[in-house]
């Protein structure tokens, strides 16, 4: 109870810092899908060229993220595509290539691979290869990602590391409704193609007081969720809840954890992580992009590291159904890694 009130205080102070404006911060209770819906509503109200499309988005989407948008903005601007991910991606790129805003949905991140060629070979290289004559910067791909309890191989994947190896793309993942709204609006308005992964386990489960109206959370900046002195813990998306629990367990055991939400996977905020590790001397990282962070921090903080950098990740197997609980890098596994690092 004490912890959660502390947490919400921290969250709102972060927000105030980021959007220092004269107006008082008016908030509304939202879950993640309503916050994302609100972001798209704001984007479409403020940009008449913005369109939202993908499989089944017209009736509101299989996760309700686009509910009522067709009624508000018309079927020309919110429409179903045929069931074809490479078509959705190519269409979005072309629409953005003439300076218009495309918000394209891939129904599950697991099904983004048919569009991999369009995203990696086309969207990411569009500006560079033309000498900046053409770009598709006003393009955002949204896709639900991550574990959901029973999603097995094709409704659980976290493919951010594939895209993080592609220069020209930005990859963004929010952890709660407020960050989701602010980061999605920032992604839609960013002049570069963005792949935006939404933790589907949190669509309904995560509820917070989200600022109403128009605001953005800047891309490329990590968010220090709690300050600590003994160890730095880095993650993103749905895993932040797991890491909060692990930090709670560690703090009960007398370990002071600094918890950081990376938010933008690429280009990632090296400076914030570096500064934190210089202070704490230890790093635990979770998620498939961990190796990049580990090697960069090892290079920059070699003299400050007091323990090997640890990666607590899913195993190198396809995502299993019956063994999901065993597969996930849960709080206890992270707590063990924290103890190991501190006792090294």
């Amino acid at each position, binding site marked *: 109870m004490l912890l959660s009130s502390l947490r919400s205080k921290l969250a709102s102070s972060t927000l105030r810092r980021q959007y220092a404006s004269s107006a008082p911060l008016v908030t509304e209770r939202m879950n993640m899908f309503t916050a994302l819906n609100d972001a798209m509503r704001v984007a479409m109200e403020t940009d008449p060229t913005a369109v939202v499309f993908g499989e089944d988005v017209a009736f509101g989407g299989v996760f309700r993220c686009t509910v009522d948008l067709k009624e508000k903005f018309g079927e020309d601007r919110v429409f179903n595509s045929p069931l074809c991910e490479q078509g959705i991606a190519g269409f979005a790129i*072309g629409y953005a290539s003439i300076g218009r805003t495309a918000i394209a949905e891939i129904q599950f991140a697991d099904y983004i691979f048919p569009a991999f060629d369009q995203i990696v*070979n086309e969207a990411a290289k569009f500006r560079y290869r033309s*000498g900046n004559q053409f770009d598709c910067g006003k393009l955002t791909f949204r896709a639900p990602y991550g574990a959901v309890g029973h999603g097995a191989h094709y409704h659980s994947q976290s493919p951010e590391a594939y895209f993080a190896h592609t220069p020209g793309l930005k990859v963004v993942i929010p952890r709660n409704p407020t960050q989701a709204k602010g980061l999605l609006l920032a992604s839609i308005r960013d002049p570069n193609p963005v792949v935006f992964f939404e933790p589907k386990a949190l669509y309904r489960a995560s509820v917070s007081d989200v600022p109403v109206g128009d605001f953005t959370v800047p891309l490329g900046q990590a968010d220090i969720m709690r300050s600590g002195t003994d160890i730095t813990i880095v993650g993103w998306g749905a895993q932040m809840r797991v890491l909060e629990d692990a930090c709670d367990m560690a703090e009960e055991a007398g370990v002071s954890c600094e918890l950081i939400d990376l938010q933008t996977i690429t280009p990632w905020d090296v400076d914030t992580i570096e500064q934190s590790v210089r202070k704490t001397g230890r790093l635990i990282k979770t998620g498939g992009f961990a190796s990049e962070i580990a090697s960069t921090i090892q290079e920059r903080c070699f003299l400050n590291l007091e323990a090997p950098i640890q990666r607590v990740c899913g195993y190198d197997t396809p995502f299993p159904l019956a063994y999901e609980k065993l597969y996930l890098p849960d709080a206890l596994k992270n707590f063990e890694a924290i103890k190991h690092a501190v006792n090294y």
Partner: protein
Amino acid sequence: MALRLLTKSLVPRARAARFFSTTVGHGEFPGGQTVPYVNKIHVVDPKDADVIPAYRVLDQQGKLVPGASLPEGIDEDLAVEIYKHMIRLNSMDNVFYDAQRQGRISFYMTAFGEEGTLFGSAAAIKPRDMVFAQYREAGVLMWRGFTLDQFADQLFSNEGDLGKGRQMPVHYGSRELNYQTVSSPLATQLPQAAGAAYGFKLAKEDRIAVCYFGEGAASEGDFHAALNIAATRDCPVLYFARNNGYAISTPVKDQFRGDGIASRGAGYGIPVIRVDGNDVFAVYEATKKAREMILSDGRPVLLETMSYRQGHHSTSDDSTRYRAVSEIKHWKDTNCPMNRLKLYLLDQGWWSEERDVALKDAERSSVLAALTKAEAKGIPALDTMFEDVYAEKPRHLQDQEAEMLEHIAKYPEHYASGH
């Protein structure tokens, strides 16, 4: 599946009457609208369908075919202008093909034999129409005013290249001329053209997207993706297939078994026109008609030009390893788009052999001059290498750029040539 094939739109009434002994009512299905029932199994075999005919105006001797007249919009000025551009493209292809053989540029692709397809269509669309090309459409860009210097600068990836020397030769692009930059992955431009066209439609702009691709590229998944989404979103886009018989070494018998690319239009609900691609007048008229249909009906059109790739696939290919020299010679001698137009012009008294020789000499000199000029230019400035990856230059790219500059400052002689 069988039910869907039996929809009214796909089976004309007359044909149905010939095959069906009795129609026994009909059913309403969400997947196939109104479907007639029959009391005998009816197999729809594409082998029974008529081959889609190709439209032509000029015969192979450059004479109007019986019943044809010169298409509206074509007069002496335009016909001569098209022919002059064919000579210019042909000269450019000859000179730069040789330049690659001499190792002066790294790569080249000619458009020999497809000049009719390129200039016929280029002259029929509007400069504001957005072109999405594959790579063998330099003629379209040339028609729009891309200069020989601009072509040469791209081929030499020098400091004058609009693409900043980043892509392989023949990957041209020009924002000013509404010609989207070419990329190597085949067919990726097809769904992109649908998206751009949809944008034009929402903006109520009087323009279309024109998307060129070869018959080989049409086997890619993106072809299917594009035609289907263009149809369902009623996009004002012209899909322009260049069927030249080969995808590198692969003849069309290994590429598809249907009636070319044109026969696929019906399955997507897209109207189709097939044209003799070696007849520039027919291509012009068909493209013009397609453009009008696209804008008046608010839907895509698929146009297939039948032609022949007279040259090698590229400078990395020797096409005589998979096709007979006599076959190439046959097409050059009897069915060459340039020659057919020339014969027509000579017949009309709009052209002469003297002018022909003089122009070919002049164009060859112009191309050689552009080549010499481009070859003398330096490569793009070093600070362009890390630009345009993103709209801004992120911190990690600034760091990498600084590292690179520090490194080459240490070993300047090793990197002096820039290559």
